[in-house]
């Protein structure tokens, strides 16, 4: 099935009120600034001023989607929304940039030659400074096409390893007591097997949080700590020992990902598994930048930030060759590998849709403490491209 042409459609989306605001960071100004009192990112942001930190539009404005369609000589095409915005002109130029710079790298290639396309756009990241999103979008749309072709969700195409994995939720709160109450409520009412904080309260605050959480939730609930790179090495050892006492499952990004020697030492010091590489992975480079961390034992668990489905599989297989787990993959990849055993349900619950709404692409389901992909062998309803074109603001 060869890619013959590329078309871009700019279509109207749902109108939205524009809004820019700064996320409320709770009581971060109260966070102790580390053992030494040195300015660290533990407390470096401060809170936004009470007034003037929010801009809200007065009326709804139209939004637009830029959809990329890779037209094949087969029955099915690959397509995905590539960009969204409030300005047609801006999207028009994004579409033109895509057509001018990248379309020729896809036309004439077999739509199943994903590895070739992945490798080609991997190099383009460097030579054309594309960033990771371009490759991520293209690889995922080609896997989506392959899934629709075989009428199965991608995890079955990859070779399913399991049908569901346990899921945990993220919890937060302005105070430790708020956070603990929130955790108890969500675990009890929503059935998650555990919960993860993103708490930057320093060693003192997070020690109090850990003991209160464990006491409130009992021994059977999984606990995960994610301080988002906010400790010094010494603080990470101290809090690690606390988390070991409280039977935490892991500590995530205790130090900056760049601190490979600190991470190596921390992995050797703590019994508590150290999970890392979310930030470096978010910039790009996986699986290649993961290899030295594994070889140097500077990671006990590695974050899954492979680019596209293809990149995620590479990252999972690399980690597996070291007997190491990954965390945070796309649901379809999680279900197709043996070493990504728990799902971070940052989206909350996703109840199972009625049977008649399911198709072969599959729908994410999060309920009763598990994540799964519900699907049927019904084909996906394909876009009517003439209709899309007639309603589009612009076809390029």
């Amino acid at each position: 099935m060869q890619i013959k042409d590329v078309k871009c459609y700019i279509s109207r989306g749902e109108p939205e009120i524009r809004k820019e605001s700064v996320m409320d960071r709770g009581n971060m100004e109260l966070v102790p600034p580390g053992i030494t009192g040195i300015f660290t990112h533990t407390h470096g942001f401060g809170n936004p001023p009470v007034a003037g930190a929010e801009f809200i539009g007065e009326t709804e404005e139209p939004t637009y989607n830029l959809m990329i369609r890779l037209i094949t000589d087969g029955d099915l095409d690959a397509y995905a929304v590539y960009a969204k915005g409030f300005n047609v002109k801006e999207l028009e130029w994004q579409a033109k940039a895509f057509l001018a710079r990248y379309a020729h790298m896809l036309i004439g290639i077999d739509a199943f030659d994903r590895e070739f396309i992945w490798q080609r756009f991997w190099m383009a990241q460097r030579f054309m400074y594309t960033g990771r999103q371009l490759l991520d979008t293209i690889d995922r749309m080609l896997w989506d096409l392959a899934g629709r072709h075989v009428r199965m969700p991608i995890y079955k195409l990859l070779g399913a390893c399991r049908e569901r994995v346990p899921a945990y939720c993220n919890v937060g709160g302005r105070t430790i007591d708020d956070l603990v109450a929130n955790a108890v409520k969500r675990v009890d009412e929503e059935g998650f097997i555990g919960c993860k904080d993103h708490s930057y309260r320093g060693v003192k605050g997070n020690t109090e949080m850990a003991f209160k959480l464990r006491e409130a939730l009992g021994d059977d609930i999984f606990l995960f700590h994610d301080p988002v790179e906010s400790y010094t090495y010494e603080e990470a050892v101290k809090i690690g020992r606390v988390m070991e006492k409280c039977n935490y499952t892991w500590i995530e990004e205790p130090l900056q990902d760049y601190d490979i020697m600190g991470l190596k030492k921390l992995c050797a010091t703590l019994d508590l598994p150290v999970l890392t590489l979310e930030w470096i992975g978010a910039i790009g480079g996986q699986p290649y930048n993961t290899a030295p961390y594994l070889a140097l034992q500077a990671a006990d668990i590695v974050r899954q930030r492979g680019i596209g489905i293809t990149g995620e599989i590479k990252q999972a297989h690399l980690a597996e060759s070291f007997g190491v787990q990954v965390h945070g993959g796309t649901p379809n990849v999680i279900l197709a590998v043996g070493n990504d055993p728990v799902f971070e349900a940052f989206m909350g619950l996703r109840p199972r849709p009625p049977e008649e709404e399911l198709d072969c692409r599959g729908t994410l389901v999060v309920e009763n403490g598990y994540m799964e992909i519900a699907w049927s062998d019904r084909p996906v309803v394909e876009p009517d491209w003439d209709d899309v074109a007639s309603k589009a603001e612009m076809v390029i």
Partner: protein
Amino acid sequence: MKITGVRIHHPAGLLRLCTDGELEGWCVGLTPDISRNLVEHMAPVIIDQSPFDRERLWQELARRDRQRHTALRGFIDIALWDLVAKAAAIPVFRYINGFRNHCPVYKRGAGISPDEILEEAQQARNDGYKGYKVATPLPEETMVPLIHHLRETVGDDFYLMLDGRGQLTIADAIKMGRALDETGYYWFDRPRMAIDTTGGKQVADELDTPITAEVTTPLEASQVMSTQSADHIKTGTPYSGGITDILKIARCAEAFGAFCHLDGPGACDGFAHGHLLGAIKNSPFFEWTDHDNPSSIIKNPLQVVEGHIQIPSGPGLGMDIDPDALDDQTAEIIST
């Protein structure tokens, strides 16, 4: 789709994964003792299971590796890939992730004496192969002059490799390796066994020419890479497992920027390695050898044309099995 049974024809060496539908998954290259072991110990894992749950089946089969030959599950894994890609009506390499539809080939030598080796390499070059590998164990005092002589004979624009078969002393490996450095050989296969991480590292550090270590599992590959006891990985079906195993090994090597070379044609007379080479970037050549016994039941054997193989484009592995030849070569069926 469910797998309903395993039937293995002998002496043809064809494994058939039978299903509740019309499709079957095939693998060629089994011996009777392997087949009996496979049917007894491995087949129960896959019976009544879906071929689309490949990774789960792989994990369960791999757990049974202890005291069993990895090839047992390798044959099953290859047949599973053949089956699912047939169901999708696309070739295995594109089912995995297509990278290329043809691949350059070098010849693995079979000559015994230096004269035979020189003649064979020259012939390989004339036949259009892209390179030649010396695969005969010779003493160091014979090998070093041969390494030079061979380069002079074939010229500079032809890939040459040397295979130590894991049997060289460290001292001999370094002496031969220096000759390879001087004459621009592409790589030095297996100077030491992979288990010799310290000796392997010494050789790898001493030489400019990359050396390989032969591994049978992804875990071994990660250990070789992280100890830097070899520059490249060497592996192959069926003794390292199936297509799934090699993909995992190759992806580990890729993350370290290393090549993953496939050993010879492997299972299915090269069809499995052909599709693997069609799906991975970090493996430069198909290793051709024409002294193995080719299977007579495959009607469309791989051909080297102008130094390349075309990766079969039919559904699955693309093996066309000759029913008459299979009948002729079926004296016994070992089945579940």
